[in-house]
Structures are given as structure tokens and as C-alpha cells.
């Protein structure tokens, strides 16, 4: 009983150490400058919007990346699905609910196409995703004649951003990802393929079907990201020549943080906490008025620092363990 309590405590510390530690540092920095981190409702909305967007992107990135499929096209799927849904809604005067639905369907169809191309041509996913990115960016540009989409004046479509709505999106997406990947046959097959592709295929798991479903789910979820980004600003700006891939880079650090936290809880919850941590950092950048170039450098250093820790954890623990043991020995003497 005592052991289980201790193990529970250890897990809780593992889960909360990073977000709480980061929040503490940020609060100290803000306090030193006399700034409140959450001063207005807008700050809360921005925080939850960032959490939702980054969490979903991180889950999507991990779906294929964990299986060794590097997918550059997730940003372009988000872009094109939001262009399609916004264009339809503006044309037929639809509300945000249908826009979200159309965005998810469009994203899922685009993801499905991407997956079908991958399994048909059997080229490395990184190459396919480069071609698909160019294709979808080009399609988005062509659909809007290069002008993008703007619905800033459409009060109905820009009414979505609110703390409540973002929390609902976060909870539903997280629950969906956990149920699908941890509690269905598809999820078990996915994990089997992830840990041993050849063995899994030889035991009868249908790899092609699994891969296509992965791409479709990833596409649908990126449709949500596209919807969140579009309704947040009321505009969708065009990107050509791989301009859309930058969204993917925002998910790497939360993915590694999530992977670490995932040792103590469900991996998807780890991604959520990773996204939450990054949302704290993003809000702090905004509140402390940190220049964008400095933001980039700090985030990159955090990524490298965290990776150095993850990849050298044993060495670091050995060094500290050795010191601790030596200190204990000296104390005994």
C-alpha cells in the first residue's frame, strides 16, 4: 500500500514537474517585471487556443512519426481544409458548427488521399509528403486565386474563440485519440506495427489499411487545426514553396516533452501536458514582449537541451547517482 502510494506520488511528480516548473519560472520572470501572466480574458483565450492547436498538431505528428513515417504535409492539409470549409461557409452563409464539420471531413479526405498515394506508389513517406505538400499548397492557392480567404467581418464565423469552446475541443480530441489508439483493434494493430513492422505483417495485421486510417485520422485532426487557426484570426493566408510546413515545427518540443511525461501516464495526456507547457511559454513570450527572433532561439535551445537530457539520461543519472553515493559514503565514514 505504502509502495503503491509512493509510486503514485512519483508518477504525479513525473507528470507535473515540467509544466509546474516552467510555470514557476515564467511567473517569477513576469513578477520581476510586474506583469500578470493572465491579465485579460484575451490572454486566457490565447492560452487555450495555443494549447488546443499545439496539442492536436503534436498528436497528429506523432501518429505517423512514431511509425517512422515523416509527414511534411500536415500543415498543407490544415491550410487546404480550412480554405475549403471557409469558402463553402462564406458562399452558403453557414455557421461555425458546419464549418468545423466540413473542415474535419475535408481534412480527412485530404489525409486519405495522401495515405492512398503512399500505399500505392510505395515511396518513402518523406518523399510522398513533399509532393503532397506542394500539391495541396498549390490547390489552396488556385482555389483562392492567391488572395487567401478573409471573413473578419463575418461575426458568425469569428465567434468561435472562447475558453469554453477550446476546452471542449481539447477534451474531445484527447478522448478521441486515447480511445482510438489505446482501446480499439485498430490501435492495437497500430502499436504492433510500430514495434515490429515485419513480424506484425507476418502475423496477419493489415498494414496498408492501418496506414490509410492513420493518414485519414491525421488529416481530419489537421482539419480541426485549420479551423481553429482560421476562426481565430478570420483570415487564411496562402503559402507556397513549403511555407505551410512551419506549423509542424511547433509540435516537436511538445512531442518530446509529451514522450517523457508519457512514461508516467498515457502518452496522449503527455502530449496535452507538453502542449500546455508550450502554451505557457508562448503566452509568456507575448506578455514579456519577447522579440520573435529571441523566441525562436529560446525555443530551439529548450528543444536541444531537452533532447540532450533525454538522450543522455542514463549518463546524467549515473553522474548524479555517483555523487550521491559518494556523499552518502563520506557521511557514513
Amino acid at each position, binding site marked *: 500500500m505504502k509502495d503503491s502510494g509512493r509510486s503514485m506520488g512519483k508518477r504525479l511528480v513525473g507528470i507535473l514537474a515540467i509544466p509546474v516548473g516552467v510555470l514557476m519560472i515564467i511567473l517569477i520572470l513576469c513578477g520581476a517585471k510586474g506583469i500578470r501572466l493572465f491579465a485579460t480574458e484575451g490572454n486566457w483565450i490565447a492560452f487555450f487556443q495555443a494549447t488546443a492547436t499545439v496539442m492536436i498538431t503534436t498528436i497528429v505528428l506523432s501518429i505517423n512519426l512514431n*511509425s*517512422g*513515417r515523416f509527414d511534411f504535409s500536415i500543415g498543407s492539409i490544415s491550410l487546404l481544409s480550412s480554405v475549403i470549409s471557409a469558402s463553402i461557409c462564406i458562399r452558403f452563409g453557414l455557421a461555425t458548427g458546419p464549418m468545423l464539420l466540413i473542415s474535419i471531413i475535408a481534412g480527412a479526405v485530404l489525409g486519405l488521399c495522401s495515405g492512398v*498515394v*503512399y*500505399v500505392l*506508389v*510505395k*515511396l*518513402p*513517406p*518523406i*518523399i*510522398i509528403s*513533399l*509532393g*503532397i*505538400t*506542394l*500539391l495541396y*499548397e*498549390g*490547390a*489552396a*492557392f*488556385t*482555389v483562392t*486565386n*492567391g488572395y487567401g480567404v478573409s471573413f473578419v467581418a463575418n461575426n458568425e464565423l469569428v465567434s468561435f474563440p472562447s475558453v469554453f469552446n477550446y476546452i471542449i475541443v481539447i477534451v474531445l480530441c484527447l478522448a478521441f485519440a486515447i480511445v482510438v489508439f489505446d482501446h480499439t483493434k485498430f490501435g492495437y494493430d497500430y502499436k504492433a506495427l510500430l514495434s515490429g*513492422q*515485419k513480424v506484425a*505483417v507476418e502475423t496477419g495485421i493489415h*498494414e*496498408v489499411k492501418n*496506414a490509410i486510417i492513420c493518414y485519414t485520422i491525421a488529416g481530419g485532426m489537421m482539419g480541426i487545426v485549420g479551423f481553429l487557426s482560421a476562426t481565430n484570426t478570420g483570415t487564411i493566408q496562402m503559402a*507556397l*514553396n*513549403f511555407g505551410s*510546413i512551419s506549423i509542424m*515545427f511547433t509540435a*516537436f518540443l511538445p512531442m518530446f516533452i509529451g514522450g517523457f511525461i508519457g512514461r508516467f501516464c498515457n502518452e496522449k495526456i503527455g502530449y496535452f501536458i507538453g502542449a500546455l507547457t508550450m502554451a505557457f511559454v508562448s503566452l509568456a513570450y507575448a506578455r514579456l514582449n519577447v522579440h*520573435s*527572433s*529571441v*523566441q*525562436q*532561439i529560446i*525555443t*530551439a*535551445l529548450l*528543444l*536541444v537541451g531537452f*533532447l*540532450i537530457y533525454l*538522450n*543522455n539520461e542514463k549518463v546524467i543519472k549515473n553522474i548524479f547517482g555517483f555523487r550521491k553515493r559518494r556523499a552518502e559514503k563520506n557521511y557514513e565514514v
Partner: protein
Amino acid sequence: MKVDRWKRYFANLTPVIGLLVLMGAFFVIGTKEDINITYGLQTIINQSVVVAVVATGAVFIYTLGSFDISLGAAVAVSALMGAISYNKTKSILVMFLVCVSVAILISLFNSVLASFFNLPVFVTTIAMLSVLNALVLILIKINGTGSQIAVPADAVMDLDSLGVKLTVLILFVIVCIILFNFTSIGRMQKFIGGNATCAKLTGISGSKMAIVAFAIAGIGVGLGAFLTIIYAPTLTKDTASSVGMDIIIAIVFGGMPVSGGARSKIYAAVIGAFSMTFLGQIMILLNFNSGIGQMVKAAIFIIIVYIASSNHKNKLLPR
């Protein structure tokens, strides 16, 4: 059996055939549209040469099965440092040396960081991409006139000729071909790319080879930065912004497998870079808008790569 051999030859030659077809299409459409073909060719060489040089060096990284996404940003930072040094010293030689040295340092930093701390190279280069992009903005802000750093156009005018650019490209490609095909460096790199575990068991140091590969790629980046200044002496935050992804496309377009290994080839970078530029120019000649042009480019890219790799299909889905 004979049919298989022909099929294999054809697949291996697909990138070259693709380039020849694109060249032919450019001449036919150009003649029909009554454009100045000579001027068009000059433009194509000017646009291709930077990507070709940088991609040629990058082949060494790709051969190992690694991947560097920060090369475009490294070109920008090296070019900016070169321009700053020219403005301080008024010496082209110093500018050239600074471009190459900075590029090698950036590349070595990437590889040493990855090797020393046991990090995945790709993620290191993603972090480096952010740092270098930020550095571009900082350098321009500190040393420029608001949004740019410029080298006087007349200072580099004599060097802005096809002769100089092609000479740099050809010399670098020859050196790389020698290193890649006729020295143990190339053999060891192909071995590591083909089977890293086996290579390690035979005593080949993956870390050392990674450092060598990144150093050679750094030289390519430095030369690319120098050529960038010569072609467009006014440097902004957008300088070489598309080079990073163009390199990946060029290498794959030229018939090089992204997984590296024994099928890697130096000439893939040059063929890919020129193919892409010919394709881009054909889209312009056909008056396609940027979106449709990019879609056609994507489709042709996938088709050519598909045919080129049709001999190397596996039962399992590739990862």
C-alpha cells in the same frame, strides 16, 4: 531476365531522361512562344547553380541516411556574414573565406552537437533552423540598413558571370565525385547508409563520418552563399529561404534514395537542381499561375521519383 535488366537501366536513367525531356520541352515551348532562349538558359543556370552546389555537398549527409533541413538557413547566415565582412574589409577574398568558414563552422556545430550528445541529427537541424533563421534577422538588424545588408553591385559585377558560376559548380562536383567514388570516405559513407550496425561492427566510426559529411556539406553551403552574394548582392531575410527545401527536392528528383546507402550518387543533385528549374521555367512559359504550376511540379516530381525507384520496391510499406 533480360527484360528486368533493361527495366533496371531505364529506371536508373529516369532522372537523366526526365532532365532531357524537360530541356526539350523548354526549347520547343520557348521557340513557340518566341522567347530569347539564350537569356532563358542563363536564367536557368543562375537559378540552379546555388541549389546544385549546396545539394552536391549535402549528398554526403544524405548518403549516411541523415537529413539536414537547416542548409538553406545556413546559406543565408553565411552569405550575410560574408557580406558584412566585405563591407568591413572591401576584400572579395575575405568575403569568400568568411562565407566558407562560417558555413563549415555551422555544419560542424550541427554534427558535433549530434555526435557528442548522441542526438538525432534531423531534430538537431530543426533546432538549428530556428536558431539560424533568428540569426538572419538579428544580423540584418544589427549590421544592415533596416531590412537588408548589401554588397555594392559593382564590387561583384565581374564575378557575376556564367563562367565563374559554372567553374565553381564543376570544380566542386569533380572534387565531390573523387571523394565519393574513389576514396574510402565515400565507401564508408555508403556502407553506413546501407547498414549502420554492420559498418560499426567493422570498425567504421559513424560519428567521424558524420563530421566529415557535414564538413563537406559545409563547403557546399559556403560556396552557395558566395554565389548567392554574387547573383543578388542585396541580402534580405528572404535570401535563400527556399533553398533548404529545394535541396531535398533536387536530391530526390535526381534519383538519390533518401535512405542513403550504396545507391547514392553525386550527380543526382545537379540533375535534380537543373530539372526543377527547367520545370519551373516551363510553368512560367505556359502562363500557369503559381498554384497550378506548383501542382504540376508536384505531380511530375512524384511520377519521376516513382519510376526511378520502381526497381526497389519492398513487400512492406517503406518508412
